[in-house]
């Protein structure tokens, strides 16, 4: 909160300096001020860290032509709206809001500042022309994790630490389970909802609770490295995956591979477009093929044949020959979702509010 206060002061100073110079929606620009709103601290070692790396890539790509500003640990909700308003008033030309929970705040503030470009991560609302959304197909990475989980589990119990029951997370759970089941029909999935993006102690407790239930492969959808730290206590009996960031410090085990969010290319492209005057509203959703989702090194803790299988799947997804949600897949209640050979339409995925067949338990409402 101190940081927020400091940034408020900085934003207020920004107003004075910018002398009311409004952003241009079209035409080339000499300078761009790119601003980033983070849900957690940069030092989380995961989600926010990766967004910040992307922001630094922007600075590196354009040097003096771009000024970057960021604010950490901004709560999702009314505070976000205030922060965004201050950024817009403070001369930001493009604002990246990097968490799902900023969706309504982003759209509300964007409507008031038509000359400022807003980019909302993982959302689906684009109420005004200056709001774009961008996301990454994390479920493609979850497929590879699921495959490894299904092959590696000894107890046939695999776990998933969910953050909030939103489509983004449900999609990841389904993809993870689907691919684990494909290679191991006996596998059971345990889901624990942490109701937080970032709370290391709680994330560690969630991992611990699952380990006590016999789970030996844990995937997490929260932002810190705590679940891996908890798995590391088991001396190799429990494995997990790097989430959002490579989390290489837990190699070779418990971290056997990772999903790395690589936002840099997208950020550079968008800020570049703004500088050149070619900026347009988009709904971007890239995956492994587009380089936005990277699969971290698969370590030697994974047997060579499983590693080869996982890499083959990664390459097939990258080449576009395999879609992680390819039928036949039924919904949890047994009703058909995808027919044989059918792939999931993006609309179904973005609004995903159901588990697939075989997962026990309900999605909290």
């Amino acid at each position: 909160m101190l940081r927020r206060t400091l940034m408020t002061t900085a934003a207020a100073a920004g107003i004075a300096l910018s002398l009311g110079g409004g952003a241009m929606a079209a035409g080339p620009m000499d300078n761009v001020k790119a601003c980033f709103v983070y849900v957690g601290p940069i030092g989380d070692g995961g989600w926010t860290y990766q967004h910040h790396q992307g922001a630094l890539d922007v600075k590196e790509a354009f040097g003096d032509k771009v000024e970057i500003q960021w604010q950490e640990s901004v709560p999702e909700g009314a505070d976000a709206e205030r922060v965004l308003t201050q950024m817009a008033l403070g001369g930001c030309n493009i604002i990246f809001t990097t968490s799902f929970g900023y969706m309504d705040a982003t759209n509300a503030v964007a409507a008031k500042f038509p000359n400022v470009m807003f980019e909302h991560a993982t959302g689906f609302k684009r109420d005004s022309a200056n709001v774009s959304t961008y996301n990454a197909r994390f479920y493609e990475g979850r497929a590879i994790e699921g495959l490894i989980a299904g092959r590696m589990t000894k107890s046939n119990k695999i776990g998933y630490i969910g953050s909030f029951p939103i489509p983004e997370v449900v999609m990841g759970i389904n993809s993870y389970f689907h691919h684990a089941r494909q290679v191991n029909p006996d596998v059971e999935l345990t889901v624990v909802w942490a109701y937080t993006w970032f709370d290391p102690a709680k994330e560690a407790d969630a991992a611990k609770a699952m380990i006590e239930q016999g789970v030996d492969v844990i995937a997490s959808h929260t932002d810190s490295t705590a679940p891996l730290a908890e798995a590391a206590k088991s001396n190799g009996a429990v494995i997990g995956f790097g989430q959002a960031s490579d989390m290489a410090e837990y190699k070779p085990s418990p971290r056997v591979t990772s999903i790395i969010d690589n936002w840099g290319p997208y950020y550079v492209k968008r800020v570049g477009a703004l500088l050149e005057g070619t900026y347009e509203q988009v709904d971007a959703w890239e995956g492994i093929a587009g380089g936005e989702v990277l699969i971290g090194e698969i370590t030697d803790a994974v047997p060579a044949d499983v590693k080869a299988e996982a890499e083959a799947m990664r390459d097939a997804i990258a080449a576009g020959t395999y879609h992680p949600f390819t039928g036949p897949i039924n919904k949890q209640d047994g009703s058909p979702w995808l027919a044989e050979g059918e792939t999931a339409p993006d609309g179904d995925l973005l609004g995903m509010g159901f588990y697939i067949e075989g997962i026990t338990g309900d999605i909290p409402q």
Partner: protein
Amino acid sequence: MDIGGINPVILVASLMVAAVPIMLAALGELVVEKSGVLNLGVEGMMIVGAICGFIAAVASGSPVVGFLAGALGGATLSLVFAFVTQVLLANQVATGLALTLFGLGLSSLMGQGYNGIKPPVTAKVPFGPLTDIPILGPIIFGHDWMVYASIALVALVWWVLRSTRLGLIVRAVGESHEAAHALGYKVNRIRLGCIAFGGAMAGLGGAYVSLVRVPQWVDGITAGAGWIALAIVVFASWRPWRVLIGAYLFGGITVLQLNLQAAGSGIPVEYLSMSPYLVTIVVLVIMSSGRGRSSLNAPASLGQNFHAAR
């Protein structure tokens, strides 16, 4: 012997670990409040303790050094609070809140470069064959030494406050600083000592989070534990053994709700998440009903600054 898919023995054993940070911090704050000072900076002192302990443990390779450094870090930060409120007589609530904000920022600064490092492992106390006793083994004999130290500290604080001259002086200062001053006690100096003790305990709790519970450093690692500690002091109505109960209750519910989910229970998690706070409200209502404010046991001079005018 599983109940609803949960092994109660493992549950109790893990809640004892989960409760340690908030118990230590709450115990320190209890002493601070008993001396009549309201320090809302527990969260800030905890997180500074967490990073100080982490840095020291990584540098020295010894968790013991880490815990000592954590306590020292928390105590040092609390002296800032003590100086501002006891010497400069600033408002305690505002200063305490500022201390939390300062601590969060400071820890983030100190923690640069410490992300992703693993601290040395805090060993479990070797009880030998005792650990293998069914039920009692994992619960009583299966922990690291900080778990036992935290319980011993509860007993120590309880004994000091109840049965020693020192405890009597601390309580006198907290109940009526004018009277204590008239008796010749140095009110602000005694309060300063209590604040430093509270800071050390919060720092110890923070170090437990970064060295044992999560074993790593990330920004904002305490994630609000300091606020829960403050709530526990009120819940405990300023009694040490009730701090222990409160901490086990809060810690237990946190662990239980995750365990219930992992076991596939049908109870909605929202109800479990809110239950400790509901219990706090119920306890406060029961305790404050009928017998007036004295039953709440709040120190009479809590939050009031003292200046020896005469």
